[in-house]
């Protein structure tokens, strides 16, 4: 099922996003972060939440660059609920996939030498919703969202 999900998200041109950043170079991490920040500001998130979102996008983009070499960050506004609009961030790649998702969500776990191992678990903490679909050899999709707090 997740494979279908991955394919549909990566290949379906009908999926509309406000921002799509292809991650192929190290500089793209900063680009994705910056664009996420602008969109979050537009939606009216507090400065603290804008920073949380930008940081989460930075982590997701870096994971793509590090482990899959290339992939995409896709971001869109969620305005269905007028009183508490939100943002959705999807990170998708056709990289090696994650064999044990539980393990990568454990704080301090990393396969990278120079890392705190708090990337994905950090994203989960910073955002309101978090889902991950991955299959070894196929790729990984992380879908995460945040709602604007009412006060």
């Amino acid at each position, binding site marked *: 099922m997740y494979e279908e999900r991955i394919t549909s998200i990566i290949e379906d041109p009908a999926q509309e996003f406000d921002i799509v950043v292809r991650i192929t170079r190290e500089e793209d991490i900063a680009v994705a972060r910056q664009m996420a*920040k602008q969109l979050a500001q537009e939606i009216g998130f507090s*400065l603290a939440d804008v920073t949380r979102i930008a940081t989460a996008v*930075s982590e997701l983009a870096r994971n793509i660059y590090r482990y899959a070499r290339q992939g995409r960050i896709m971001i869109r506004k969620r305005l269905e609920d007028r009183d508490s609009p939100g943002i959705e961030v999807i990170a998708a790649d056709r990289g090696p996939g994650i064999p044990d998702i539980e393990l990568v969500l454990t704080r301090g776990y990393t396969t990278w030498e120079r890392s*705190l191992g708090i990337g994905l*678990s950090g994203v989960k903490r*910073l955002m309101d919703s978090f889902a991950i679909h991955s299959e070894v050899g196929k790729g990984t999709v992380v879908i995460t969202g945040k709602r604007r707090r009412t006060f």
Partner: protein
Amino acid sequence: MPIMRVGGYLLVPIQIDLDDRTVGRLQQQLLKEIERTRARAVILDVRMVEVIDSYISYTLSETAVMARLMGCRTVLCGIQPPVALTLAQMGVTLQEVAVARNLEHALVLAGSFQERDKGV
């Protein structure tokens, strides 16, 4: 990245968005400067930095550990409230890094390290 000398300390005002390459270059540049100037402390002013993610904090902390091995302390100052909240929520701890409110406080902290290291 400009690195200034104040007394026996190095002062680095970071006034650009930190991307991975910049922060990596900063580490190399700093370690060279510490060796060259035999600085007793490095003060990194991050007042203008809007995002510090796990990689940037890892590299800053790693730099501090390396600097410490060269006899130099690291003080980070001017972390903005949204950045502080984000770092805390992610569970980041900055090893070997002292945190100061502003430059003046950073200088005070650097001075107190010096006393402690001398055993005063």
